[in-house]
Structure formats: C-alpha cells, structure tokens
C-alpha cells in the first residue's frame, strides 16, 4: 500500500501546482465580461475584436440562451453587459434593479430557408413537411415564426422546436428537417445561396427587438463598449451580419444622451 500512498501524495502535489497555474491573475487589469444570446454571438465576437484592438481591454464572451443569461444575472453572475435576444427579459432585469442602462441594439430578421430548393413566399405558404423553428415559448425568433405561420396561414406537417434559433438552424443544416424559419444572421454567417432563402416581411410578426443591458456593478469600460457598439462603423457591421439597426434618429438621440 506504500506505493499507492506515494501516488496519492504525488497527485495532491501536482494538483496544487495546477491550481496555482489556474488562479494566476490575468495580465489585463480590466476584463470586460459579456453574456450574449446565441444568435448574436458571432457578430459580437467581431465587435469585441475591434474593441480590444482600440481600447486595450480583454473581452470575455459567454454565449447562452437569453433565459439562461437572465437566471445567471439574477443569481449574481459577474457580467458587465448582457446582449439579450429580446426586450422582455432586459426590461425585467431593469425592473428588478439589476441594471443601469438598457438599449435596443438590433432587430432580428426572420428567414424561410429550404436548402436545395427555390425559396419564396409561395414555397413557404405551400410547405407541408417538417419545419424547424425556435421554441416559441421562450425564444423570440420562435414567437416571430409562429406569428408568421398564423398570419400567412401556413400549415407545415410537423413543427420541431430548437432550444434556440441556433439549434433550429442546425436541424435544417444537418438535413434532419428539410426546411425552417431561422435568422438572417445565420444565413449570412454560413453564406447560404440567395435562392435558397426568403426574408419574411417585418410586418408578418412582432419585431424581434434585441436589447442590451449594462449591469449595476459593471466596470466603467462597459459604457465605452456600448458607445463602440453604436458607432456608425459597428452598426454597419451589425447590418451586414443580417440585422436591422435602430434608425438614425434613435441613434443620434442615444449619442446625445437624450433617451433615459
């Protein structure tokens, strides 16, 4: 048994060394911690890269569903900013006193995607197969999808729900669902050919308003990041990624600090 004791001692020693490695403080004095809804992650990563270069601040991004982010913030997760996929839960966080700033940063665009087939309004209305959408109970894109199906009187054979819009997208991408109502940002991200998707008109569903909140105890760098997000160059990037951005009037009011 002495040899096994030796191993245990060595193991304890080794884990002590490893632990030391992990708790070393980072060389950046002021990390910015951002929680982001799954659909905006790739866009936010691009924004964060630009911000890191110009401001010498490291940005840590963790992606989760808006519901999970909400629960984490409510229970004291140390985020500085949360980019949510809707406006309901940011408003809720605000009413609970967790935030010091709330603002709309983008509007999501819903897209009918049917790989390897021409997509247009008629193709959507006549579609009868399995269709993947985000879960309408808690995902904003899912609610918009249900609105659209009802308004346009579409009767798909079967609706399957992704936990979020990324999972709905993956169901179509892997071929398990032949079509789906997904986000334009995903279509852009994967360079889907233009004839395979059709952007659903905005008026067929309630706007997919995506808001950010700066949390109460956030570092002062958080406001810098928000300002950077509403910089014209950045809003152009957000538009190119497949979102609509708040119009110029709103933005100038934001710049002048007129709203809230």
């Amino acid at each position: 048994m002495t040899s096994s004791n030796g191993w245990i001692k060595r193991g304890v020693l080794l884990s002590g060394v490893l632990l030391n490695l992990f708790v070393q403080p980072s060389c950046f004095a002021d990390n910015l911690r951002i929680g982001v809804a799954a659909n905006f992650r790739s866009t936010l990563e691009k924004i964060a890269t630009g911000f890191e270069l110009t401001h010498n601040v490291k940005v840590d991004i963790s992606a989760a569903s808006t519901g999970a982010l909400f629960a984490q913030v409510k229970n004291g997760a140390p985020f500085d900013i949360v980019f949510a996929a809707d406006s309901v839960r940011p408003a809720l966080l605000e009413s609970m006193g967790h935030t010091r700033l709330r603002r709309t940063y983008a509007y999501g665009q819903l897209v009918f995607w049917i790989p390897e087939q021409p997509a247009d309004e008629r193709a959507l209305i006549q579609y009868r197969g399995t269709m993947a959408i985000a879960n309408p109970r808690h995902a904003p894109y899912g609610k918009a999808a249900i609105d659209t199906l009802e308004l346009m009187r579409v009767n798909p054979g079967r609706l399957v729900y992704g936990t979020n819009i990324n999972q709905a997208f993956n169901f179509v991408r892997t071929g398990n669902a032949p079509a789906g109502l997904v986000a334009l940002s995903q279509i852009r991200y994967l360079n889907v050919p233009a004839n395979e998707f059709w952007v659903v008109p905005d008026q067929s569903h309630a706007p997919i308003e995506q808001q950010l909140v700066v949390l109460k105890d956030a570092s002062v760098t958080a406001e810098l990041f928000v300002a950077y997000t509403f910089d014209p160059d950045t809003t152009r990037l957000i538009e190119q990624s497949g979102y609509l951005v708040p119009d110029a009037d709103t933005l100038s009011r934001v710049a002048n600090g007129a709203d809230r």
Partner: protein
Amino acid sequence: MTESDLVSLWLTLKLAFVTTVVLIVLGTPLAWWLSQRSHARERGRMVKLLQNIVEPLVALPIVLPPTVVGFYLLLAFSPNSLPGELWQSATGTTLAFSFYGLVLGSAIYSLPFYVQPLQVAFSSMQRELIEAAATLGASPLDRFFSLIVPLCRRGFFIAICLSFAHTVGEFGIVLMIGGNLPDETRVLSIALFDHVEALDYGRAHVLAGGLLVFSFVTLFLLYAVDRRWQNGTRTT
C-alpha cells in the same frame, strides 16, 4: 402538475421502460460474452482482442459528454447520411424528432450502466455449479434461466435499476436530437429546461423536486435491497 407535465412524465417512464427492455435483450448477452474472458484460456487471440476493444467501447458513455453522442446521432439520423437514408426508406420517417430515435440514443447512453454490474456478477459467479449442471444434462438455456439468473439476481437488479434511473435522468442527447415534441420527445428533463427558460420557476420546482425525490428513493431502495441480499448470501 399540469396536463402537459403529466404527458412528459408518462413519456419519460415509457422511454425508460422501453430502453431498459432493449438493454435486457441486447446487453445481457454482451455482458455474458465480456465476462468470459478470464475463464477461457483456450479462447483465440482474436476473440480476446475483440473483447479488449469492446469493453472500453461499452464504457465510453460514462466519460463522453452527452453532446458528443448527440452530435454524432444528429448527423447519423440525417437523411443525407447512410443510416438515416436507410431508416427513411424503410419506415418513411426520420429518427430525429421521434420516440425511437430517443430509445436508440438512451440505449447507447445507458449501456454501461446495464452491462458493467452484470458483467461483474457473471465473472464472480461460482462456475463449478454451472459445470455440474452441464454434466447433469441441463441445456444451456435451462442453465441460464434456472441457475445463472437466480445466482446473479443482485447484478440483474442493480443493472435494471441503474439503466432505468439513468434513462429518466437523461438530458443532453434528447435535447440535441429530440425537437421538443409533446408526447413524442419532450421528456421531463426537457420540460424542466423549458420551464426554466420561460422563467416559470413554479412549474420548474415541481419537476426538479420530483426528479430529485425519485432519484433519491431509487438509490435508497437499491442500497437497501442490495444490503439485504448481501446479508442473505453470507448466512446461506
């Protein structure tokens, strides 16, 4: 509990039951085959090599994140891949978003929880008894059901309880291949996740608390019965 939660409860029990039956049918011969390695010296080297490969394969789901299994299943179930295409041409449906897809995923995920306790039981059995029965003319099937099953009842009991309970507790694979269909793939763990995401903590508490109590009671009974049987074997 609301009606939709009751539907999820029923579906979960059905999934765990069917998965356990599948594992009893397929896992028992597998556990037996794996338990034969130490006894048969005359076995060919190829068989031993095969056993050395299959044993860690069976144990893989213990260490693999369920997302790995879920990801590969999602790709395999797609009609764009060979297995998915074969299934679709045979049944006209897809395995993803279906109850049978979940059974397949759960059987893979709970396989070690069935096979390992049983393999241990088979290996530690007194082989002289079985050899004696064989010399007395008992057929292999007769030997299995009237000798081996009673001798290894403890192993069977643990294996069945663990694979049933483990399937009830499954989440990651179902999340990735299920598609959240009521009465088809929305099991309790998924319904719970839904409630949390929708900020309905009241309903989440009912399911989470229920699953906690169920798991504790299952393990409590498992240990209690096991203690009793252990004592029983000592006195006889």
